[in-house]
């Protein structure tokens, strides 16, 4: 369970790791609620709580005033965290990306269906016979390109 300060810090970190789009249309990871995913990410990391706590605590050790820093100063702090704990930070990144891109409401922002892909899938039209014949014509024209068993 995170304290209020840790929770606020985590949200800021997440929004710096996956920032919102310039027009605000695509939310950052903090505003998208990735923090709640991190709390229940045990199937995807041996110890997600330790990963999250290590990142938060290291951020606050480096910059006790992290929440009041400028965006660029916060980025610099996170870069230092990454340098101090490269493996932990990579695990943090993995979990953040998983928590963010698994959200059904976000997927359409990247061109992917919100709903589960089965049973509907995606409509992809088959190429016409004519188109396929035209595309493969140069390949056919070269003739056989395999090596026979006798060389």
């Amino acid at each position: 369970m995170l304290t209020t300060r840790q929770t606020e810090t985590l949200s800021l970190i997440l929004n710096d790791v996956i920032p919102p789009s310039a027009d605000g249309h695509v939310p950052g990871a903090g505003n998208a609620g990735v923090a709640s995913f991190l709390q229940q990410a045990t199937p995807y990391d041996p110890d997600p709580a330790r990963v999250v706590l290590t990142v938060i605590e290291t951020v606050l050790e480096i910059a006790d005033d992290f929440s009041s820093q400028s965006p660029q100063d916060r980025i610099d702090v996170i870069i230092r965290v990454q340098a101090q704990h490269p493996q932990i930070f990579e695990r943090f990144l993995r979990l953040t990306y998983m928590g963010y891109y698994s959200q059904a409401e976000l997927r359409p922002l990247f061109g992917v269906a919100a709903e589960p892909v089965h049973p509907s899938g995606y409509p992809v039209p088959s190429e016409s016979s004519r188109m396929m014949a035209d595309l493969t014509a140069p390949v056919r024209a070269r003739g056989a390109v395999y090596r026979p068993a006798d060389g």
Partner: protein
Amino acid sequence: MVTTMKHEPVDVLIIGAGASGAAIAWSLLETRMRILCLEQGTHLPDADFPSRRPDYELARYGEFSCDPNIRQLAQDYPINVDDSCIAPVNWNGVGGSTINFLGHWPRMKPSDFRTRSLDGVAEDWPVDYATLEPFYAMNDRNTGVSGLSGNPAYPDYAPELPPIPLGQLGQTLAKGFNQLGWHWWPSDVAILSKDQDGRQKCVNAGTCDLGCAAGAKGGTNFTYWPMLERAGVELRTGSRVREILIDPATGMATGVLYHGADGQLHRQQAEMVILACNGIGTPRLLLNSDTERNPDGLANSSGMVGRNLMFHPLTGVSGVFDQPMKGHEGPMACSILSQEFYESDPSRDFVRGYGLHSGRSTTPMTFALGGYGIDRPIPWGAAHREIMDDIYPNIASLTVVAEDLPDQENRVTLDPDLTDSDGIPAPKISYRLGENTRRMLKHGEARAAEALRAAGAHTILSKNDDAVWWRAGWHQMGTCRMGNDPENSVVNGWGRSHDVKNLFIVDGSIFVTAGAVNPTSTIQALALYIGDRIKTNIATLFD
């Protein structure tokens, strides 16, 4: 004291319900022998495949990971990969790795069976393409294969169903290959482009690795097993074989000891034992079946059990285009395949060759985490936003699939400490990349970049920094190779152990060379061929 439960003897005991176990069971149906298949995993209903869940992509990194060391399900055995640059991946359950394979279905080529004679490397197979051709065709009919006839990279044959759509990505890349005058062809796939036999055609969901909830992909859970169960083949799931039992007087296999779903140790007698446990599971079981008479493992008088492990080392190159490639729409690995650089060419600094496979279905999560088979998250911060907004939608990739040459030092052994949940010693993989393969991959990367540029890519991205993909050991071959000489092979030209006359091996471990194509089509064709030889030789089978 451990209780051992005994069962009625069977005629044929098959270990493993994956690609090869199912195929040979089907081949032997007409003999009316009593056939039992022991499978360590479960029979997962397709309703349980993750692609019907809102968070389906997460399953790829948890309980449906292709890596058993990540999944750690009850039916999985750990694999020590500390001494390997490639991690083996698989699925343990009915269907085996056809549950999470990608359905790419190219055949091996005539030259693949003759590398010693043609190129002076490895060994020739004791069978050839022409011999296997009718069994490829038989297997294609049972599986449901889509593709385009007339591929000039093969002797003539015709896939039964029309090709699956190339899509924007495949069409774009095809034009690039045409620009260069290089071979390419729509991929043969074990994926239905039309409804068939009660199975639904592909809906382009892009989740082939998550079980295919549509039943379009030709996993043996959808193809062979319904036929086998209707025909009365007994399938015992949750049954992990501990060792093969041998009669010390005759040297013949008498059956197996296995841990059942009930937690008990069982003894199953059989007239004939067939191993279908893949290129790692099969040598593991043989090495675990050592006896006083066979101290180095069963069927191992040649010392070749576990040796000559071959994967298909992979690397990839991506191109960024001006328009969306819609990479997440369509079967994952299958759009087009170029075999321009497949055959040996004396002007190159390597022998044999590779294929260039177009990949699809990179969803945002998979892409952000580094790509399928790669553990390297993309950058964070402003760069992350830029990559996901401007690069991800417009990307198309080519995968270099290299032929691996056999090397006796690349091998499967038993780990001295690691065990599965039943206490059975786990396999350890020792594998390094050969110099020939390194050169091949380097050549392939450069040609892939060339093809992408010709197709219109304005930026080329290499994903691997000269390393092969880590979690990409799909194809596990060579560890019990076939051959005519008992001194340097484990089984003969039709899969029978040189040492134990009623023991057969039918999985990818009996491959002599790897080719540079996905092996499942060949594994199953070979299993059908071995089944045919067993039927032909039935009167003198164990002589």
